[in-house]
């Protein structure tokens, strides 16, 4: 399933992006969860193919957005990246070090390099610990003595994320959702990681607070030179924060491109459908003031079960362009134009049809 591994593209990194400074490279990453039957004699009867052979690379200082619907495997991918879960096969290389199968003891130094921001600011903070204890925990666990002491380091972190450093002794319940998310971010930043994997960092927050946290993440990236992998289902948020965007469907990446390319000329039918489904805050009215419905591509049905995904192209069961070949032959993730890779036999917005002016302007 790792047919892309040896192409020059995978080697020079982010399709079209300058090579050399790739911080994270993932090749052929697979995670299957075995499904077993029986109590005494457990036998494997199948596997949930949560992540099934994905290749990714992220350039230092940039943001990769990982989008997909529930069941697409985006969260599992995130957990694999921070090694909260053991991949079935594949390789994860961070800053030149292969971290795929590090043993528990060897993982400790790795945890300083990669950190995670969680979705739910309520369940990801221990309610019985003070903010000081929560944000200071990484120092304690890693036996790091920051200059000036832990308390001072924590207060600096709180200030960095826009919280009052005097709230050091308060408990999580005294904070609102947005502030809790800031506490989580402060904890993430304690050991100055290189890579931060953020799994739905703003989806539990109110709209106005979402914007505060997004701006904070961007400021921190600029100030500390962080690299992000942001997992989200909200396509507008992903467009706002990402440099590169990868679209996942049933454990596979179906399209990767720079932000502007992906949103201006989506090529995979699934991406096209996904983008057309996003509600736009602008009512459509026809000439006589009557309400009109926006034209969108309606996908029928739900995402099939990853326990038994459709053969060949996994999207063919819901695709309006599907032909015989889609049911028999898996389309490779191929580079159609520079920096834009699509796994589809019949991509949309193909160069000969479209004037293709936008991707050139969107080199960014």
């Amino acid at each position: 399933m790792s047919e892309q591994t040896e192409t020059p593209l995978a080697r020079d990194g982010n399709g079209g992006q300058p090579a050399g400074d790739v911080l994270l490279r993932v090749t052929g990453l697979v995670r299957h969860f075995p499904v077993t039957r029986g109590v005494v004699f457990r036998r494997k009867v199948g596997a949930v193919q949560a992540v099934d052979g994905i290749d990714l690379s992220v350039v230092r200082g940039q943001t990769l957005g990982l989008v997909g619907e529930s069941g697409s495997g985006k969260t599992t991918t995130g957990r694999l990246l921070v090694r909260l879960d053991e991949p079935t096969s594949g390789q994860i290389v961070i800053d030149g070090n292969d971290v795929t199968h590090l043993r528990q003891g060897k993982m400790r130094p790795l945890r300083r390099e990669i950190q995670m921001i969680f979705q739910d600011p309520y369940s990801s903070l221990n309610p019985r610990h003070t903010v000081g204890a929560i944000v200071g925990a990484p120092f304690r666990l890693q036996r790091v003595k920051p200059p000036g002491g832990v308390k001072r380091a924590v207060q600096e972190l709180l200030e960095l994320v826009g919280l009052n450093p005097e709230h050091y002794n308060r408990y999580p319940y005294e904070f609102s959702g947005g502030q809790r998310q800031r506490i989580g971010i402060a904890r993430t930043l304690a050991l100055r990681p290189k890579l931060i994997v953020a799994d739905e960092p703003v989806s539990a927050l109110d709209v106005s607070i979402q914007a505060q946290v997004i701006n904070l993440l961007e400021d921190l990236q600029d100030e500390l030179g962080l690299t992000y992998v942001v997992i989200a289902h909200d396509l507008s948020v992903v467009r706002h924060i990402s440099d590169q965007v990868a679209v996942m469907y049933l454990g596979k990446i179906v399209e990767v491109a720079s932000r502007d390319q992906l949103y201006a000329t989506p090529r995979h039918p699934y991406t096209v459908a996904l983008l057309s489904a996003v509600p736009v805050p602008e009512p459509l009215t026809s000439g006589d003031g009557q309400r009109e419905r926006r034209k969108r591509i309606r996908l029928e049905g739900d995402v099939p079960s990853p326990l038994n995904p459709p053969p060949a192209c996994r999207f063919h069961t819901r695709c309006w362009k599907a032909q015989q070949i889609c049911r028999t032959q898996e389309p490779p993730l191929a580079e159609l134009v520079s920096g834009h890779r699509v796994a589809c036999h019949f991509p949309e917005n193909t160069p000969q049809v479209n004037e293709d002016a936008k991707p050139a302007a969107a080199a960014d």
Partner: protein
Amino acid sequence: MPGALLEVEDLRIHFPTQDGLVKSVDGVSFSLERGRTLGIVGESGSGKSVTSLGIMGLHQGTQARITGHIRLGGEELVGALPARIRELRGDKMAMIFQDPLSSLHPYFTVGNQIIEAHRVHHPEATKQQARQRAVDMLGRVGIPEPAVRVDDYPHQFSGGMRQRVMIAMALVNDPELLIADEPTTALDVTVQAQILDLISDLQAEFGSAVIMITHDLGVVAELSDDILVMYAGRVAEYGSAADIFARPGHPYTWGLLASMPRMDRERLTRLVPIPGTPPSLIRVPPGCPFHPRCRYGHLNGGRSETEVPELRDTEDPGHRVACHLTAAERTRQWALLAAGEVPEDVREMVPRGGVEA
């Protein structure tokens, strides 16, 4: 508006607690005609769900103190007998909740639950008739093979399908009023699109009035004819969807619009969040409840700190705004914000692409 199906007038829903009186809804008025959709928008704690539960009479048995008027087809619901509310609920008015898994009973088949909803209000219907009705409804909401799936349990359905079952159950008695409380928040975008289309198709078919409660301005723009923006239990702005999106009048509405990343526009380098957090409903700020978070409060000489702004008409008919700013000032400030001006306080710490750490 005479002849409206639902009229809510000066509705107040307060909850006494140990810490003080929680004024969840504090003087809300609106009306809704048959066949139209009202979108209620606001953040958590703005009182949008409490309002809808109040209409459905679901605060009975709690400590809630409800005053004001709720009239459904001319009939007063505030203070009505619980038995009468029970007759109306599920028959004349129905509700769809956010989380379809926790609103369906896991021990009963979906068919049973729909049949029960029907027979409660139609005791004359035989079991066969009610079952046939359930199958019809499941088919109407787009469940494939409804005659088979009617005997399935909720766990055998996906999230989108469960929401369809909820809609089937809500519509089984042809209600005149349908309240949808964040009906698509728990769903994926493509499924959300299916459900929104379904709600508006069914509305066209049954001619019911719909109240759509959501925090997502995109969802509101897709479906609503009118919009009510709530903040801290009060109405900040009320008007037609076209007016509110074209000429929003309240700084809070501006804040909601400017803080969303937009797919239909050029990508902005910076989002404009609303500063601060929503207030506690026990200690609602004096004067305009929004003033501690408002960037424009200083423009009216401190009035917003002492005087509660009334909901006043603007030049658009039916478009009302509760703000002390003059109409001219509002037009000017919104034009600036819409043109992409970034207020002083949200400028970047370091300009993008700047200093390395």
